[in-house]
């Protein structure tokens, strides 16, 4: 490993740096950390909670707990391992408190006949929100599909196979600088395709607030 390799900030160090800044009260650093792990945490929660609307609420609760517990995080395990445990515990607690709430709710006989035990059918999301999220996923998939082959290969080797830039350069038989550029161009193309949708989503959120 040459000195340039050693000088790079690894993903683990990046997390540690953001955690340190968040511990010092820099909320913007914590915001970056949340957005870095939001989807991973949401996926953990979705193993326990089936309601799509509740997943986001529980994810929010998880990150609030994470922020409050940050002073206790010593960095012995990776940041993701730590928040994974918090996400599992919070999801379980959510299910327990929800089952208590359901037990305590009086259900009329007529309502009980129509009451479905399937969580998916009791989705509390508004149709607009469901549509917007569906559109987000569709746009993303479409943008990935329309990427030029060299960009798509580079980004898939990086994100799906988890190869380093050096390994991708070997595989694609091109200089490492080209790999850097291809991966960035792939991401940028998706970013451009998503931007109008994300702006609409932000406007919708602000209107809801």
């Amino acid at each position, binding site marked *: 490993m040459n000195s*340039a390799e050693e*000088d*790079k*900030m690894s*993903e*683990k*160090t*990046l997390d540690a*740096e*953001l955690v340190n800044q968040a511990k010092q009260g*820099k*909320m*913007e*650093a*914590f*915001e*970056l950390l*949340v*957005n*870095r792990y*939001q*989807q*991973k945490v*949401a*996926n953990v*929660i*979705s193993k326990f909670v089936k309601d*799509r609307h509740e*997943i*986001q609420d529980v*994810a*929010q609760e998880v*990150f*609030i707990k994470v*922020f409050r517990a940050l002073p206790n995080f010593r960095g012995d395990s990776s940041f993701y391992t730590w928040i994974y445990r918090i996400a599992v515990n919070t999801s379980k607690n959510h299910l327990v408190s929800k089952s208590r709430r359901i037990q305590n709710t009086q259900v009329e006989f007529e309502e009980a006949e129509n009451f479905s035990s399937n969580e998916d059918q009791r989705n509390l999301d508004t149709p607009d929100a469901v549509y917007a999220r569906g559109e*987000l*996923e569709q746009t*993303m*998939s479409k943008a*990935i599909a329309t990427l030029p082959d060299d960009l798509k290969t580079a*980004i*898939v080797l*990086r*994100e*799906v196979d988890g190869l*380093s*830039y050096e390994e991708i350069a070997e595989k694609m038989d091109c200089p490492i600088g080209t790999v*850097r*550029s291809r*991966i*960035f161009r792939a*991401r*940028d193309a*998706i*970013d451009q395709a*998503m*931007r109008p949708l*994300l702006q609409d989503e*932000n406007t919708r*959120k602000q209107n809801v607030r």
Partner: protein
Amino acid sequence: MSDKSNQNISELMDGELSSDCSKFLLKRMQSDSELKSSWNTYHMLRSCLQKEHDAPLIQDLGSAVVAQLNSHEHQKTTVAKKTNGWLKSFTGGAIAASVALFAVFSFNNMNQIEQTVNQPVFAKTSKQLINPPNATVVRVEQPTGYSRFPSLTPQVQEYINESNNQLTIPVYYNTDYVNDMIIKTRVHNAKYQADE
């Protein structure tokens, strides 16, 4: 927003950017919404490609979490301020009440003292006539045998005896009574001398 900055973000999230550049970029990203937005989208793309969407795609949860944390903090400080205000007014009230209470008590005590001082004292016995209670000035009877200088001339001893035999008059008695007493004493002495 430059392509170079976005390329740096791309490299940063892959752990391919130098430490110095990474630290600088992290600082910049925290105050630049465009760069923050790119960071979010790049991570969404990662989640999408890694088939991490059992859950719906979540977008910018960070701002919602930070807003909630800030509102919790705001509520805490508001509650603390309210409690402080209540405590302050309570403390102020308590101090005012204690000062008032002290003033009332001390005023009553002063009255009592003044009352005892101004209250006239009347001699009821012959001893009290000579040494009345609460008298401001009294003459103290000197024992005849007392002297720090026993070798003093007999004239001095005689003077002490004479002064001890004189009527002791407390200073606060009214002048009419005193004059009356003096006249009576002189008349009595004159009669006594005439009889002799």
